[in-house]
């Protein structure tokens, strides 16, 4: 079997909570926001891998950790079998060419004072990827062509505010694409876009994956979109992966009570579908002091007793590439 393109092993990111001066002198327990708290998964080349979860589950932090936009607290990130976790920025620079990101909000991620041409060519200049200006222009035009902003000449000298939201996000895709990366983190790339133009960005991702073998980590809160886009999926809750496996399996047979609750809560654009009662009460607890044992036990409708409260369930293999972290499925302990 082919080696995965990217491997993430027990990755952690704890953000220290700022306390006042006096408190820090007096001492006492140091508090952390455990945004990502020991997660493992791998992404193959030519795959769109979904990372789904509610706000505060740590999915965006995970995306940024992989690209080393923030430094991990612990754990390992392997890209093409090379450990990139502790590379210095200078050493990491050559990897940036292979790993790119598309941010959530195309209204904020594009510099309003740069032309579209200079936005897309900036990575080329930073990476010194071209011999001369002509090559730069050719690559920019090719990238624009790739994201169907044609004819490229018409867009190169315009500014982001002159184009629509969907086109902006395609510019962001072109910027990520121009260095011919192998891996792109797409952080909620369509959540700011109108419904009718979402599909054009998402379908573009699928095309890039098929045509150029680009792998994506698709970070999303929308299970419906994840289901139509992703090959495999991991569901996160409070910094932990609750369940992961093939998207089809998870959608049709969710095993973890949290995944089930999520699936039941996703609204369906069909007035005939039956509406399940919402069984989950309350909202996601604070990641500063996450619940002991299983993090979901405070809201779990299938709470089976002290074990859930005391022991943290391990992510256990329960089928073909299917992992669930829940005592309902763990070996008898």
């Amino acid at each position, binding site marked *: 079997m082919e080696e995965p393109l990217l491997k993430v092993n027990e990755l952690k990111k704890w953000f220290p909570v700022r306390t006042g001066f006096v408190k820090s002198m007096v001492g006492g327990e140091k508090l952390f926001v455990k945004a990502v708290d020991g997660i493992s998964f791998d992404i193959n080349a030519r795959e769109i891998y979904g990372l789904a979860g509610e706000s505060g589950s740590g999915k965006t932090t995970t995306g940024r950790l992989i690209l080393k936009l923030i430094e991990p607290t612990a754990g390992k990130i392997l890209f093409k079998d090379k450990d990139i976790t502790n590379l210095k920025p200078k050493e990491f620079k050559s990897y940036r060419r292979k790993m790119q990101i598309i941010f959530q909000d195309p209204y904020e991620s594009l510099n309003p004072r740069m032309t579209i041409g200079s936005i897309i060519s900036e990575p080329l200049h930073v990476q010194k990827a071209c011999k001369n200006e002509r090559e730069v222009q050719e690559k920019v035009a090719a990238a624009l062509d790739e994201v169907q902003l044609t004819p490229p000449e018409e867009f190169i000298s315009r500014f982001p505010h002159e184009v629509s939201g969907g086109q902006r996000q395609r510019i962001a895709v072109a910027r990520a694409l121009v260095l011919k990366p192998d891996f792109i983190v797409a952080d909620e790339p369509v959540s700011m876009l*109108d*419904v009718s133009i979402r599909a054009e960005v998402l379908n573009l991702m699928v095309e890039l994956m098929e045509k150029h073998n680009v792998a994506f980590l698709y970070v999303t809160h929308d299970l*419906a979109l994840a289901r139509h886009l992703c090959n495999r999926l991991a569901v996160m809750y409070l910094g932990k992966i609750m369940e992961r496996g093939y998207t089809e399996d998870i959608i049709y047979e969710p095993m973890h009570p949290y995944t089930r609750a999520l699936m039941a809560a996703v609204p369906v654009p069909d007035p005939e579908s039956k509406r399940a009662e919402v069984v989950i009460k309350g*909202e996601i607890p604070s990641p500063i002091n996450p619940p002991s044992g299983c993090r979901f036990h405070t809201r779990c409708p299938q709470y089976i007793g002290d074990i859930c409260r005391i022991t943290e369930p391990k992510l256990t293999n329960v089928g073909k590439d299917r992992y669930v972290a829940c005592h309902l499925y763990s070996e008898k302990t």
Partner: protein
Amino acid sequence: MLTLKVEDLRTYYKIQRGYVKAVDGVSFGVEKGQALGLVGESGCGKTTIATSLIRVLASNAMIVGGHILFKDLDIVKLTEAELKEEVRWKGISLVFQGAMNAMNPVIKVSDQIIEAIQLHEPNVEKQEALERAGKLFQLVGIDPSRLEHYAFEFSGGMRQRAMIAMALSCNPEIMIADEPSTALDVIVQAQVLQLLRQLKERLNLSLIIISHDLSIIAETCERAAVMYGGKFAETGDIYAVFKNPLHPYTQGLLGAFPGVKAPKTRLISIPGSPPDLLNAPVGCKFAERCKFAMPICRDFDPDLIEVEKDHWVACHLHNKK
């Protein structure tokens, strides 16, 4: 029985370069105890309808035509004093988009609700208002003891519930909810939608729910209206609109909005972007993005006609004449 009837409503915004026709000839009715869903993309005029209904428009906006008939009043013609006396909050209340983030952080939630009650019903004593607030909190599923807390101590979902409680505080017949669940997480969103359905039944409340999300409308409403460029593209019974969409725009929207368990398909996008309502095209506003566009579409704006019982479409494809 219709609680509210809107006829040919037109609301324009005046800007330096002319008039933006945000709502341009919209008619609908709201049945007692039923929910109407207004769905459409940003800039199609959904929120302008909401603010027109209780006349809390921006200073450069004006209702230039049409009628809003509520009880035996025409809201378009009322004076400010009459509006306050008869309509706002007591007749029709509005939960603004993102209102849950607009609560005053330094005033207790109870005082904010009491203020809303006493503003519209000056005869109500503070104690009575507080009791009413407690009952409302129970109704929307928050422990009344939380009344004495501040908004920042509430979670997002609780704040939205509190806003709904506030909107119900003067016993309105109609509540308008503008994007009631955007910015909420999936599970909390499902809780809020369930609350809206319960309120509709328990209080025989009429709802107008505004959303860009078709699935939210499908989950809560009996009727739906799909808006495009300040007009209704299609409206009718929820089953008719969702199960037999006739307008190419509705079809496109439904194609762009996959069900989570629907067969895996390539998502459909509608190329192009919404029309500029300042210089709207002469014919059908959707013509330039429509794959079925015919010459007539660019010249004449189609009327909203009833193609089958309680199913109205504004499209030349379905105009038999």
